[in-house]
C-alpha cells in the first residue's frame, strides 16, 4: 500500500511538472504558431536564476519568485529580438528558436561552467500521506503546479485578456480585424509561457542536478504531451502530460527505467496514429 501511494505520488509529481512545461509550450504554439525549441533552455534559465539568487545570499523562496519574473522578462526580450521576425514562417521558427537554445546554453556554460550544480532542498522533512512518508518539498511542487495551472485557466477563461487570446487562437486574422492588438498579445503570451518554464525549472531545481543541458530532458516529453493531448484547448496539454507523465513514471517504477522512454514513444505513436489531432481536440470536434 505504502509503495503504491509513493508510486502514484511520484507519477503525479512528474506529471504536474510536465504540465507546467507543456502548457507554456502549447500556449505559445497555439497563439503564435511558433514551435519554441528554446523552451527547455528557458526552464534551465529558471533553475540558474534560483541558483544565482542563492549564491548571492538570497533565500530559496526569493529565488523561486525571481525565476519566473526574470525568465518572463527574458521572454519579452527574445520575442522582440527574434520571434517577432519569424511569425508566419513556421519552419523558420523552429530554426530560430533552436539557434536561440544553443546561444542560451553556451552563455550559461561560459558563465557557470559546464559542470553541474545542485540546490539544497528547502523543505527537508517528510509528510505522511495515506500511511506513506513523502518528501514535503515534492508535495509543495505539486501545489505550485496546480495553482499555476488554475491561475492560467482563470486567466484564459475569466478575463478579457483571455478572451482575446482565445479569439486569436481560434482565428487570428478575424480577431485582429476586430481591433485586438495581436502584437501586444503575442508579446505578453510569449513572456507568460517563458515565465511558466522558468517557474518549472526553479521549482524542479532541488530535485535534479543543474547543468546547461538539462532543458532537453523536459522539452521532449513536453512536446510529446502537447502532441498527444492536442492543441484544441488548454486541457489538451494537461491530458497529454498526464498520459506521458504517468506512462513514463509508472513504467520506470514498476518495470525498468530503460523501458520507460521506449514505452512512452510507442504510446505516443499509437495515440497520434489513432487521434492525429490529439485526444482532446478530437473529442471536441465530435460534439
Amino acid at each position, binding site marked *: 500500500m505504502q509503495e503504491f501511494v509513493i508510486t502514484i505520488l511520484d507519477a503525479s509529481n512528474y506529471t504536474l511538472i510536465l504540465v507546467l512545461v507543456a502548457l507554456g509550450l502549447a500556449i505559445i504554439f497555439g497563439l503564435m504558431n511558433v514551435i519554441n525549441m528554446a523552451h527547455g533552455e528557458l526552464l534551465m534559465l529558471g533553475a540558474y536564476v534560483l541558483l544565482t539568487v542563492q549564491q548571492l545570499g538570497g533565500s530559496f523562496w526569493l529565488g523561486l519568485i525571481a525565476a519566473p519574473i526574470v525568465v518572463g522578462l527574458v521572454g519579452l526580450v527574445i520575442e522582440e529580438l527574434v520571434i517577432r521576425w519569424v511569425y508566419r514562417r513556421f519552419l523558420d521558427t523552429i530554426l530560430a528558436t533552436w539557434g536561440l537554445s544553443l546561444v542560451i546554453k553556451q552563455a550559461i556554460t561560459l558563465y557557470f561552467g559546464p559542470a553541474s550544480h545542485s540546490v539544497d532542498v528547502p523543505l527537508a522533512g517528510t509528510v505522511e500521506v495515506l500511511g506513506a512518508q513523502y518528501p514535503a518539498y515534492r508535495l509543495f511542487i505539486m501545489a505550485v503546479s496546480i495553482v499555476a495551472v488554475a491561475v492560467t485557466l482563470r486567466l484564459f477563461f475569466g478575463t478579457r485578456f483571455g478572451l482575446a487570446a482565445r479569439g486569436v487562437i481560434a482565428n487570428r*486574422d478575424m480577431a485582429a480585424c476586430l*481591433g485586438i492588438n495581436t502584437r501586444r498579445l503575442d508579446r505578453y503570451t510569449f513572456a507568460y509561457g517563458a515565465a511558466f518554464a522558468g517557474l518549472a525549472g526553479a521549482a524542479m531545481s532541488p530535485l535534479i542536478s543543474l547543468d546547461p543541458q538539462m532543458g532537453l530532458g523536459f522539452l521532449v516529453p513536453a512536446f510529446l504531451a502537447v502532441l498527444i493531448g492536442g492543441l484544441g484547448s488548454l486541457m489538451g496539454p494537461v491530458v497529454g502530460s498526464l498520459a506521458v507523465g504517468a506512462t513514463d513514471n509508472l513504467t520506470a517504477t514498476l518495470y525498468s527505467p530503460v523501458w520507460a522512454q521506449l514505452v512512452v514513444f510507442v504510446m505516443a505513436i499509437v495515440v497520434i496514429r489513432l487521434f492525429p489531432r490529439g485526444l482532446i481536440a478530437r473529442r471536441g470536434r465530435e460534439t
Partner: protein
Amino acid sequence: MPPSARGIWGAMLEVETLTAGYGRGVVLDGVSLTVGAGEVVGLLGLNGAGKTTLLRTLMGLVQTRAGRVRFDGDDITGCAPFEVAGRGVAYVPQGREIFGDFTVEDNLRLGNLGETPFDLAFHHFPALESRRRQRAGELSGGQQQQLAIARALMNRPRLLLLDEPSEGLQPSIVGEITETLTAIAETTGAAILLVEQNIDMVLALADACAFLETGRIEARHSADALRAQPEILHDFLAL
C-alpha cells in the same frame, strides 16, 4: 473639420491607385474609389474581380504594393488590421467567420473588449439576445450572419465593410438583413462599402455602385441611375 483635412474629395475613405495581390499575382491593379461619410457604396464585379481582396487590403490583411488608402484624411496604408479597426472600420467577412466555439455574448465581446454594452447589437438583432448564452456555432446561417454584423457594430464603426452578407441565405432572410442594414445605416450614420452579388439587396441599400473589373474600378453609377436603367447592371454582370 476643414475640407482639406478630409482630403480633396471630402470623402471618409479614399483609395488611390491601390495595387495588391497574393504571392506574385496581382489582384488589384490600381483601384481608385471613394466613400463619403454616411454613404453606402455597392461594389459589384464578377467572381475573381478582386472584391474580397479589396476589402481585405483595406483592413490590412493583404499587403499593399502601391497606392494609398486614407481614412478621415489620415494615411492608413500598411496599417495593421487592429489599427484600422481602432480607427472605426469594421469588417464582416465572407463566410462570417464568427467564433463557433464561443457563446454569442463572447463573440460580441470580442467585437470590442472595452466596456461597450450590447444594446446597439441587440437593438438591431433582437433574435440574438434570447440566444446570448448559446454557442455561436449552433446558430442558423441567418443568425450567424446577424451575429457577424452585430459583432461589427460593437466597435461603433463609422465605416462598415460587408462581404456578401446574403451568401447562402434564404430570400426571406436576405430581405430581413437588407432592412436591418438600412436601419443601421440610417440610425448610426455609418458609411458602408458593400460587396454583394444579390442585385436587389444592392439596389435597396446603396447610394452608388462601383464596378470592379480585372483589378480596377471601371465605372461608378448612382443607384438611382441603375434603378432607372437596369440594363447597365445586366450588361456589366453578363460580361
